[in-house]
């Protein structure tokens, strides 16, 4: 164990941790923009700078590890000034198109500007592009729009693609002197949308749902992905009675914040107009829409007849690896207790 002092507080900690980690673990706030817990420190935004005794220059707290006896200050006037200046650089030609940005009110940049304050005098002098909406450019998947003008080049997307997904589709670079992200290897893209999920601003936005909603207009329901056996926890974002987006919870297993293409973009079927909505009964070569009563009475009658004529074992049922446990339980109970046969199976083997 080593001892460090942060903002006058003595803290015991293990060596090898970064200043940011130690600060956060002890409830000391340091602003960040690019930092993501499960990735290696990116060190791009430089907002997490702190002062360390013995050094004239500020130290990036997301990269710098604590050493014994280190004396750290996280919130001096000089640091606040520098953080504000760094923010100003980000806002230099950031379009103030917040009203039409999907990310409004969920935007880390908005939050930081609000938190650190903004010197209007300089804004008048240098920020000259309010409401300048530039169209999105091509990304490596059609599920995502990229607005380079809103991009803060934090590279969360680049690193999440490299480290979490393992694809390395994206590269940080520059265009006309301005930092931006390039989908340099689109052939490697698996359209999982992890880049989208970590974008702190409105540079990457979801391009699937035509319907959008502000955070206070939508509800999030936590449930389980309907696809493979991993069983990722997902959050269905619902507005106006429709799923408009899928997000997830970083804190819970089994997926800890990660999704694949199906989990993230495979929700449109829910609202498909091809969904069955009424019971159907065959009439010759076609089907007739009927009421639930008619349909169920018909089925009940036929099942009774067959059971009486051919015995219970002439009836079989397939339950489903895509229905809930409760559905399956009731189904097999029905087959066994009501019909009286063990002819129950599902397509697990297929």
């Amino acid at each position: 164990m080593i001892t460090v002092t942060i903002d006058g507080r003595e803290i015991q900690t293990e060596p090898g941790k970064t200043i940011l980690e130690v600060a956060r673990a002890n409830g000391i706030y340091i602003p960040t923009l690019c930092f993501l817990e499960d990735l290696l420190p990116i060190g791009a935004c430089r907002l997490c700078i702190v002062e360390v005794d013995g050094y004239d220059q500020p130290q990036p707290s997301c990269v710098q590890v604590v050493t014994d006896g280190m004396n750290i200050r996280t919130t001096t006037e000089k640091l606040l000034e520098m953080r504000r200046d760094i923010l100003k650089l980000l806002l230099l030609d950031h379009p103030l198109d917040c009203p039409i940005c999907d990310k409004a009110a969920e935007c880390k940049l908005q939050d930081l500007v609000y938190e650190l304050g903004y010197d209007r005098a300089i804004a008048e002098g240098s920020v000259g592009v309010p409401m300048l909406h530039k169209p999105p450019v091509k990304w490596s998947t059609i599920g995502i729009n990229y607005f380079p003008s809103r991009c803060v080049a934090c590279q969360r997307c680049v690193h999440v693609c490299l480290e979490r997904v393992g694809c390395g589709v994206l590269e940080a670079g520059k265009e006309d002197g301005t930092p931006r992200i390039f989908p340099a290897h689109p052939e490697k893209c698996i359209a999982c949308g992890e880049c989208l999920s970590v974008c702190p601003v409105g540079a990457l936005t979801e391009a699937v749902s035509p319907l959008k909603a502000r955070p206070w207009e939508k509800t999030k329901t936590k449930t389980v992905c309907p696809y493979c056996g991993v069983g990722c926890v997902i959050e269905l974002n619902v507005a106006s009675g429709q799923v408009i987006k899928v997000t997830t919870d970083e804190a819970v297993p089994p997926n800890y914040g990660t999704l694949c293409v199906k989990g993230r973009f495979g929700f449109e079927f829910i609202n498909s107009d091809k969904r069955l909505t009424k019971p159907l009964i065959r009439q010759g070569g076609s089907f007739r829409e009927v009421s639930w009563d008619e349909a169920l009475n018909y089925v009940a009658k036929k099942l009774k007849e067959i059971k009486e004529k051919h015995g219970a074992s002439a009836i079989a049922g397939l339950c489903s690896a895509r229905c809930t446990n409760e559905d399956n339980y009731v189904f097999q109970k029905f087959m066994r207790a009501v019909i009286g046969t063990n002819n129950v199976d599902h397509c697990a083997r297929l």
Partner: protein
Amino acid sequence: MGDIEDAEVILVVGSNTTENHPVFGMKVRKLARMKGTNLIIIDPRRIDLVDDAVLHLPLKAGTDIALFNAMLNVIIREELYDKKFVEENTEGFEELLKVVEKYTPELAEEITGVPKDDIISAARMYAKAERASIIYCMGVTQHAKGTDNVKSLSNLALVCGHIGKPGTGVNPLRGQNNVQGACDMGGLPVFYPGYQRVDVEEVKRKFEKLWNAKLSAEPGLTVVEMGHAAIEGKVKALYIMGENPVLTDPDLHHMEEALRKLDLLVVQDIFFTETCDFAHVVLPACAFSEKEGTFTNTERRVQRVRRALKPKGGTKDDWKIIAELSERLGYPMPYRDAEEIFEEIRKVTPQYAGITYRRIDRVGIQWPCPTEDHPGTPILHVGKIARGKGLLVPVEYRPPVEQPDREYPFVLVTGRNYYHYHTGTMTRKCKVLNYGAPEPILEIHPIDAHIIGVSDEDMVKVVGRRGSIELKAKLSERVKRGEVFSTFHFHEARVNVLTGSQELDPVAKIPELKVTAVRIEKVGKGE
């Protein structure tokens, strides 16, 4: 899945993890790339994970056992096995020894086509690791000898003592989100919920009492047997809840014939599937997003499913439809909601006894969870093998039933792709997914394609002994020479028209889906 991080070596067998279980695949990939976990891939195709692997053993489809036995051969001969573990925790080592003795790496090379040095390296790497894990999927089970394949894999793990510790074990990856749950709930012809056998008198009596009904002690039919029975006229009515056997079942023509013969086919689903074409009654069900309930994932984690939307149109919960039908048949099931059903599940399923909706509100619990203060069981067999001692069951290699010949020179391997799920009823209605994989394709090695005069994007006809399909060829070095690959997601090219259902695994009743002999004919030029 969480403890995979502790493994030094991961043996990935018949699992295209990054495509079929992408989120888990990402994790495996991250471990390989960033931590240095050694991956050994055993798969006929050069799947994406091979890029991050130290070894790829591209065996001929259906020759798994010869390969595993040869690995055992090396491990035993070089005395790399865990002698203490074998002595204390297993039985049957002598018998196993007798069988694997003849599977030398040289013989295995002949059978599997994998260079013997690679077999030896794989065996050494797996055996020498402090902790090594095996993950497998349909590539292992979907064979007429799927059960033998799994036994053979567990022999490997037992002999090396790679079991019951974090980062070890023989871990199946389930293809669909609630396969585990459907099995747990008794969606199987021989089991009541919680794997209690229907043919054990005392179990039967217990359930008769619980359910207040007379039950049958006779094991039921499996899905493939149902098909055969329908054709023979023994099964007259079939009730299908949320499955689409017309695309998933092997030898589709056979299955279609079976469905046509039925007096009553009820299909309950969210879409009008290919199977609905044969139905007498179609019932509209809620989608997962409109349901309350639970799913159980591949690591036996029971998780909450919640209603985000009102049921669309006139749809109803699957269980509710069944309950209403049940009432009409004189057996009321007056469940108020899903939670009440779950409370009953807890009562009859010992593994679920300690799980409540309240407990899994935020994070799911892994069964077995016998009591409400039990934390759940992330790793099975900790400290000891569940049945006391692990039984080593020697298995012999038998060649796949379907062998390529002059007329059908290629072996068709079937599987899934990354963008679609099962029969595509859901995924093909999603923009991003359809863009990623818009149409069925047949992967074929460029040299083979060249020999039969097929270019990239040409339409080809795949002809097997039971039928044929047409689809686009894609030249790819992911497949070996002599093998072709396609998926079963697409109704335009129903791959299971080709696969066989006569030969079933004697225990699990799984048909031979992975190995089918076919020939390829060019039918048209690609644009």
